[in-house]
């Protein structure tokens, strides 16, 4: 049986108090919000923090006027008419995260800080011990790419690519003060050190600019539960005549970080979203997907269909009725 390791539990009521605790405890302390990622990881001894600092009682993380509080649950995002209408990609991403039970607990901030995943890493302690552990935790070899000096665990957040396409910025608070970064800059392409967030910082809110038409498509085997093995988010702003004024395409689960494909966005600028233009932009986006053999489904096939998924997202932002395709892919219409 997998039991939790011992830890100390702190439950501050404000961001300032939480930041003070983090500053005092140092890197041995970890934040916990919904716990849907951290608790199973602790049971498998991926993380054994000395102190857990709970954010559940911090009301200021749950505001939704203007910026979205990092403590909002994924269910709250899915049920928010504002999120659904204005930030469609985020809404579609949130609606496809895990299962209803996990969305009731999991938070926006937690999803953005989700630990990277790998079939050699997300196993119990005994299994990992039997293969002498891996580069990400307690071992020296990356079993996915044995020649690699870098951990190639996959960024598996759905929220991040959606919000990167939406050009979101996040606020990080610590005892030393606050800073704001573009969400894309929160991530590093390193399966171990995948966040640029310092251990003493708290992700407090996500600010999303208005005016984007957006869409998120998730590839996974089943209609529920599974983490993405590819996520494509697209956001565009168009002139009245349909010419693209700005476009952002982001990929998730295609590297150790979610990232923006600048080339695809630049290509779309000044063009209309014709089938040919969409195909070319989708191919540009897909060329940046470098999946590894450490998640579900066939590696080469995942690479093959990346352009199709990018095209689905672009066709949806163009205004095509994608419900039938969506029901086939996602097993729900998400319209």
């Amino acid at each position, binding site marked *: 049986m997998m039991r939790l390791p011992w830890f100390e539990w702190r439950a501050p009521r404000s961001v300032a108090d939480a930041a003070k605790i983090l500053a005092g405890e140092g890197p041995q302390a970890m934040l916990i919000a919904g716990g849907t990622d951290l608790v199973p990881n602790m049971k498998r001894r991926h993380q054994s923090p000395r102190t857990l600092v709970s954010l559940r009682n911090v009301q200021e993380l749950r505001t939704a006027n203007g910026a979205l509080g990092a403590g909002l649950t994924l269910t709250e995002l899915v049920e928010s008419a504002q999120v659904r209408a204005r930030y469609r990609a985020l809404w579609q991403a949130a609606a496809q995260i895990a299962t209803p039970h996990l969305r009731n607990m999991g938070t926006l901030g937690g999803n953005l800080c989700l630990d990277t995943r790998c079939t050699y890493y997300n196993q119990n302690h005994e299994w990992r011990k039997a293969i002498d552990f891996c580069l990400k935790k307690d071992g020296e070899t990356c079993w996915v790419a044995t020649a690699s000096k870098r951990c190639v665990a996959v960024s598996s957040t759905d929220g991040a690519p959606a919000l990167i396409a939406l050009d979101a910025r996040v606020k990080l608070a610590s005892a030393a003060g606050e800073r704001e970064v573009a969400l894309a800059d929160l991530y590093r392409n390193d399966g171990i050190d995948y966040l640029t967030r310092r251990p003493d910082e708290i992700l407090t809110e996500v600010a999303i600019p208005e005016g984007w038409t957006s869409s998120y498509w998730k590839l996974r*085997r089943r209609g529920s539960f599974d983490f993405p093995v590819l996520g494509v988010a697209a956001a565009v702003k168009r002139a009245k005549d349909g010419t693209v004024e700005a476009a952002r395409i982001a990929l998730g689960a295609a590297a150790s970080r979610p990232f923006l494909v600048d080339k695809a966005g630049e290509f779309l600028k000044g063009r209309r979203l014709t089938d040919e233009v969409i195909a070319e932009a989708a191919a540009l986006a897909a060329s940046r997907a470098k999946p590894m053999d450490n998640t579900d489904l066939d590696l080469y096939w995942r690479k093959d269909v990346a352009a199709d998924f990018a095209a689905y997202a672009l066709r949806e932002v163009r205004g095509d009725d994608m419900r039938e395709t969506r029901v086939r892919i996602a097993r729900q219409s998400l319209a």
Partner: protein
Amino acid sequence: MMGNAALQAAGRVREQLAAAAAEQLNTLPDRVLFSQDRVYAAEDPGKGMSFVEAIALAEAKFGTLAAVGSYAPPKAPGKYKGAGVGPSPAYSFTACVIETEVDARTGWITVPKVWIAHDIGRALNPVLARGQVIGGVYMGLGEALMEEQVFRRLPPKLSGALVHRQPSILEYKSLTSLDMPEVEVALIEEPDPNCPYGAKEVGQGPLLPVMPALANAVHDAVGVRIDEVPVTPDKILRALEKKAKGEEARVGPERFPAVPYPKPMFVLPPWEGGDGGETKEGRKAA
């Protein structure tokens, strides 16, 4: 087979109940009737007791009510392997139709609907029987589309260990309720004389036709044969590529496994006078 044994055991418990009730009703055990939750004497239906009271009487008389039933199946019709499958006195059959949509660009498979007819003999509890059939479809689709045991060898220089590609239930996937298609069940009832009240199995029988039906539906949709489970989008795409190149449009094992089969023998069917033994003349004729 177990149904027949259970029926016999239940009959023996009924005898205990009848014996206890007969004492109370001042009649003979074989004059005791059981009907509509009541236990009474045949000659005076007004006088009697509830079923629960009969149980209490029987428990007081015999202690814990228990009986053992058993059943030995009839002799196999032939002596050769394959003359009968296991020791069952009867076999059920299932027919399955699967509707499948396959995206020829990505190989993505969708199963919107399944029709399945199960030859059950007699449905003693139709609701449960339908549930069993739907469960069989669920299990069959998991096998057809997802479940797989794959091992990979870690580099011999570093480890050489053989490890599961899907070591936990998060990776070894079965359908979620969102992936489960609508299932239309038909229970085909033709009581089998060898079975308890004519009822045949509804265990995992309905599972069997699901995998081949799915593979055939994929063939019907895009004209490729996937001759192994699970049938996955990458295999369909690979087969479609082969088809486009004019190669054999199939993905699956390249050869039949080497099996040491016994020497073939010729046996006449019972209606031609065969007794299960080998027929020398028949072999000549064949």
